[in-house]
């Protein structure tokens, strides 16, 4: 239950990281490190596909905020795609749904 899997795919000048599993306090240290490594590759856009993430807590949101800041500091973009209803509601509660670029699909994010 606590394992989190990430799969990275390069699509042109975009990096798409597909996440599978819950993103909570138990997983965020390794999740954060994975994303920091991707930031260093300075893709035009980092697409985080959360369609296989059924649950996230505030530590997961905090990780994404930190990665967003890091990647923007490198002049790159970041988008979140495929949010489940539960994860979307977390972004709404924390009022971060307008802070991030949230799109329905990875294709839309890659083309953005």
């Amino acid at each position, binding site marked *: *239950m*606590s394992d989190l899997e990430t799969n990275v795919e390069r699509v042109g000048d975009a990096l798409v990281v597909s996440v599978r599993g*819950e993103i*909570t*306090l*138990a997983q965020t240290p390794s999740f954060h490190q994975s994303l920091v490594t991707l930031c260093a590759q300075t893709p035009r856009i980092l697409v985080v596909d959360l369609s296989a993430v059924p*649950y996230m*807590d*505030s*530590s997961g*949101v*905090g*990780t994404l*905020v*930190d990665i967003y800041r890091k990647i923007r500091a490198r002049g790159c973009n970041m988008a979140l795609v495929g949010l489940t*209803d*539960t994860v979307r*509601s*977390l972004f709404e*509660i*924390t*009022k*971060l749904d307008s*802070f991030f670029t949230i799109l329905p699909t990875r294709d839309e994010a890659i083309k953005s």
Partner: protein
Amino acid sequence: MRISGDPHQLAAVRIQVQTFARDVGFADSDCVHIALAVDEALANVIEHSYGGRCGEPIDIELADAGHKGRAGIQIKVRDYGRQVDPGVIRSRELENVRPGGLGVHIIRSVMDEVDYTPADGAGMVLVMKKLSRS
């Protein structure tokens, strides 16, 4: 119930809270949010009250607090760690977007009543209540 404060145990607690909330009559979307509030409360205890140490005790009590035909729940979380002035436990300003500090905001957003008090001896007691809309 008493749990050992460990981030890897929180998923199991969440499921128990969701099941209890559903059993007392909350809608599925409310059950998810109530479990989220408890999750955030326990994460805060591990991170702040116990300074990140795992394995410390946390007591959780769930009670049916239905009232006048509305589903209701009361959740009590008691730890034995650091005591803090309840006045300093507050949501941070969301305009200042940064990692961390969102847990209390989530708890206060989801639950109707949130009350932190220092416990006798050591630690804090958090009591959270919520009633369904109808």
